[in-house]
Structures are given as structure tokens and as C-alpha cells.
């Protein structure tokens, strides 16, 4: 057990190094003068030579990378060109909103997905199953940015139930959450349906039914408990997808978060901001996947072997 966790943790440093190398190289692959790229159109005091030295751009690339890495480890991700503030402060301001959106979408996706999947597997009427499977195909095929627009039009502009744009209050989080959650809910409903139908065919379910237990109890207590591990595993895999999806959803709702920073930074050529946000996103993604990996190893001993 301990060796499994340790082996996984050992994987973390090389991954983080590789991720930082990618974000470092990215900036150097952008065509143009690095001084302008890192300091905007007008380097301080107009003295390009001084700026070059200050940024360490006169050093060989490996030295520059080590310097970048050292600074990043101290929380220094450079200075935003547009606002002149430290990149880390910019990201720190926006990060909670992104996390909030991703977590609430995860919760909603699990509730919706498990609920619909259970319905499809447990209700004997065939049309219920057909309807749920059809809904899940639609959910998987729906562009989130279109769904977001339709929800804004209906619930924010016409019915005025929710604030329109750029709002991170609880009310302002409802529509983005629904938008982000639906595709994940679609995947989870299928996984739940598949897992539950398999479990429902097993002997002990027949035993429980033969004992005269109510079908509802058999499904919800006996069967769902055994299907849920697979569902939660897939839900964990969905987390990264939700994090990525938040980039688009935040932009649909003009919701201040990491996703809106990245996109506005690309359009405004604010390279330190792009670099910082991409790094934070990737580190988060790697860390979460590792955490889930370890967690599954703890829950399900069979995984530890592979």
C-alpha cells in the first residue's frame, strides 16, 4: 500500500518539471523579440538592453529555465503586461471562482448522472431507458457555449431569474454550473446505467428479490452500492474535463476566472499571464489526477497491481 502511494508520488516531480518546461519553451517559441513579448510594446525606460539583462534574457537558455523554475517555486510568475500586477496575484484573485464552478458542476453532474442512470437501469418500461440514453447522446453532443447562450436568453434575459453576466455570486453561478455539468452528467448517466444493469443481473440481487424485498430497496441499497465505485472512478476522470470545460463556460458567461484570464491574455498578447495561467491549470490537473489515482488505489486494491 505504502509503496503504491510512494511510487505514485515519485511520479509527481518529473511531471511538474515537464509541465514547467512546456510553459517555458512555449514563450520562447512565440515569434518576435522576447523583451517585447515579456514586457509589452514599451520596455521600461525604453532601454531594451537593460530590460534584457533584468529579465535574464542575455543568459543561455538552460540558465534562463532554471531561473524561471526558481522564481516559480518562490511564487514569482512574472508581471502581467496589462495590469502591471504580479501574475500570481492576478491568478489568486480569479482562482476561487474557477474552483467553485468546477466543484459545483461536478456535484450536479454526479447527482443528475447517477439519478438518470439509475432510472434507466431500474425502471422496467423500455421508453424510460430509451429516453435517458437519447438525452445522454444529446448532452454529449451539445456545444456548451450554445447551451449557455440559450440558458442566458431564457432564464436571465426573458424570465430574469438569474443575473446576466460577469457575476460570481451564488445566483450567478447557477447557469454556468448547469452548462458545465450537462456533458459530464451525460457520461455519468451511461456509466451508471451500464454498471447498474450488470449488477442487477447478479445472483445476490435475485436472492434479495426472492426474499421479498421491495424493488426500490433492492436497487437503491443493494445494487447501487456496488455500482457506485465505477461511477465515482469515471466521475474523477471527468474532473479534468470539467476544469478544461470551464475555460469555455467562463467565457460564455463573462465570469471572472482562470479561463477568462487565459483567453483575454491570448487576445491581448499578455504572455506572462498566459504562461502563469497555463502552468497553474496544468499543475492543478496533474495534482488532482494523482490524488484520485492514489484514492482509487486505497478504495480498490485491484488497481494497485497495475
Amino acid at each position, binding site marked *: 500500500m505504502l509503496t503504491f502511494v510512494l511510487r505514485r508520488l515519485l511520479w509527481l516531480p518529473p511531471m511538474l518539471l515537464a509541465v514547467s518546461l*512546456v510553459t517555458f519553451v512555449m514563450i520562447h517559441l512565440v515569434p518576435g523579440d522576447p523583451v517585447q513579448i515579456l514586457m509589452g510594446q514599451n520596455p521600461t525606460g525604453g532601454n531594451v538592453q537593460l530590460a534584457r539583462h533584468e529579465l535574464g534574457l542575455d543568459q543561455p537558455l538552460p540558465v534562463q529555465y532554471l531561473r524561471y523554475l526558481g522564481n516559480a517555486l518562490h511564487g514569482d510568475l512574472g508581471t502581467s503586461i496589462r495590469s502591471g500586477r504580479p501574475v500570481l496575484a492576478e491568478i489568486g484573485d480569479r482562482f476561487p471562482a474557477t474552483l467553485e464552478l468546477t466543484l459545483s458542476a461536478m456535484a450536479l453532474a454526479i447527482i443528475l448522472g447517477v439519478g438518470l442512470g439509475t432510472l434507466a437501469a431500474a425502471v422496467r418500461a423500455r421508453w424510460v431507458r430509451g429516453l435517458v440514453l437519447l438525452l445522454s447522446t444529446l448532452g454529449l453532443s451539445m456545444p456548451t*457555449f450554445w447551451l449557455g447562450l440559450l440558458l442566458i436568453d431564457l432564464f436571465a434575459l426573458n424570465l430574469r431569474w438569474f443575473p446576466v453576466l460577469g457575476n460570481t455570486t451564488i445566483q450567478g453561478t447557477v447557469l454556468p454550473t448547469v452548462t458545465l455539468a450537462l456533458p459530464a452528467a451525460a457520461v455519468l448517466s451511461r456509466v451508471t446505467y451500464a454498471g447498474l444493469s450488470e449488477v442487477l443481473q447478479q445472483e445476490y440481487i435475485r436472492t434479495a428479490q426472492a426474499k421479498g424485498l421491495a424493488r426500490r430497496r433492492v436497487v437503491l441499497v443493494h445494487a447501487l452500492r456496488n455500482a457506485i465505485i465505477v461511477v465515482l472512478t469515471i466521475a474523477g*476522470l471527468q474532473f479534468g474535463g470539467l476544469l478544461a470545460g470551464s475555460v469555455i463556460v467562463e467565457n460564455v458567461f463573462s465570469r471572472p476566472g482562470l479561463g477568462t484570464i487565459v483567453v483575454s491574455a*491570448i487576445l491581448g498578447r499578455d504572455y506572462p499571464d498566459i504562461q502563469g495561467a497555463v502552468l497553474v491549470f496544468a499543475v492543478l490537473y496533474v495534482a488532482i489526477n494523482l490524488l484520485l489515482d492514489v484514492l482509487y488505489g486505497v478504495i480498490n486494491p485491484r488497481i494497485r497491481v497495475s
Partner: protein
Amino acid sequence: MLEQVQRIAIHADDAAVARPARLRVLRALARRPLSLVGAFLVAAFALMALFGPWLAPHDPTAIYYSAVLAPPSPSYPFGTDATGHDVLSRVLAGARISLSVGLVAVGIATAFGTLFGVVAGYLGGWIGGIIMRVMDVMLAFPDILLAIVVITILGPGLGTVMIAVGIAAIPAYTRTVRAAVLTVREQDYVEAARALGASSLRIMVVHVLRNVLTPIVVLVTISLGLAILTSAGLSFIGLGAQPPTPEWGDMLNDAQNYLQQAWWMAVFPGAAIMLVVVGLNLLGEGLREILDPTIR
């Protein structure tokens, strides 16, 4: 998302060995009503992509100053947008753009993913090790973020989006193909070819590649829909197609400022994206279930 597709597609490798006749696959598809709907939708959009310019009532980039934000009418069946473009003509023209962006992106992913997957799976060794470690690093970035890294380097644009979405999908293809190759590699016929003195290159191309085609076909169908969604999403947030290109995502970007005045600007391009992706998904699911005996 791709990881899911990939995991599902890996199962299809059992079918690769059985190698079902094409005719049987087509017949099986025709017996499934939802797959038929999918095939019909895909065919309809393919026809739109091929013949859209001749079907369109107007030039998709022509500006009609007398009809700005005009609601649907006989002369503009889907209405006009805020610039005075005919929305129907733009939706029709968008089919060609979206399908070609999707095909190019999936083409890039298939070409490199198959190459890397076959090499890593068949040769293994240090080359295979390096390939898989690079894929691990790429998988450390969520696919949209990987696309954003590429867009940062190359600058926003439709061409960049094709490349970016294609590159972002390479790891999924590499893993799928490698997994399929690993099972094919142990088959008797590969052993036999090796015993007969066939070179590694010949075995890879003639025997291994041919037998991992099934999982690739399934993956291509499903990831084409995903590529179209991601590309349109990137155009929607302003990183892809630029106006006045008639691209569905960019049209929706335009539409969000006129939700109250002009619902038609948002409804038609969005419905087009959804229908083509629904079609590809239904068709892909059908193919997967027919080609993959483990699901039945």
C-alpha cells in the same frame, strides 16, 4: 473526454482479430434506427459541405444594408445578422468549414497517433519509452489547454485551431493504437511472419497496422464530433475563425450580443453544430457496438 473515448475504443481491438466483413457491418448498422438517423445526419451535412455554395441563396459574406437583423422571411429564411449577412447561407457555408477543420484535426491526430502508437507498441524499447513519456506530459494538459499552448505559439486563427485540436488529440490515439498493437503483436500470425523472416517494418505495416484499423475507425468517428465541438468552441471564444469567415462558433460569438433582438442568429448555427455532432456520435456508437463484441 477523449480518455473515455479512448478507453471504449481499446475494447474494440478484440474485434480487430475477427475482422468482420464490411457488408455485415453495414447491414447491422441499417438494423439500428438510431444509427440510421446518425448516418442520415452525417450524410446531410457532408452534402451541405460539398454543395453548400450552390444551395445557398446568397453569398455568405455579402452585406445587405437594407436587411440588418431581419427576422426569418422568404428571402432570408434564417434571417440576417447584425452586419447584414444572410444567416442561412452562412450556416450552409459553415458546414464545409466545420467538417474540414474536424477532418484535418482528426487527420493530424490519426497520422501521428498511429505512427507513434505502432512504433511504441511494436518496437517498444527506449524509443517506445520516450514516446509514451512525451504522451504522458501532453496528457498532463487538459485538451483545451494544450490547444491554447499551440494557439499561443502560432497566434489565433482557423488554421491554428486545426493544428491545435489535432495535436491535442494525439495522445489519445497513440495510447489506443499502442494498446491494440500490444494485443495484435502476440497473435500467431505475427509470430509466423517473424519466423518467415519478415522485417519489423513489413510486419508493422502489413500485419499490425491492418489489424488495428477497427479501433482507429471507431475512434475517428467519435473524435470527429469532439474535434468539431472543440474547434467551434475555440472560435466562439475568439481564438479561431475571425469574422467575416462563416464559421458556426464565430457566428455564435456574434450572436451573444443580440440574444434579445435576433434569436435566429443564435439558434441556427448552434443547432447545426449540435446536429452534426449528434449524427457523428450516433453513427460512432453504432459502429462501436457492432465492431466490439465485448459490449453486446
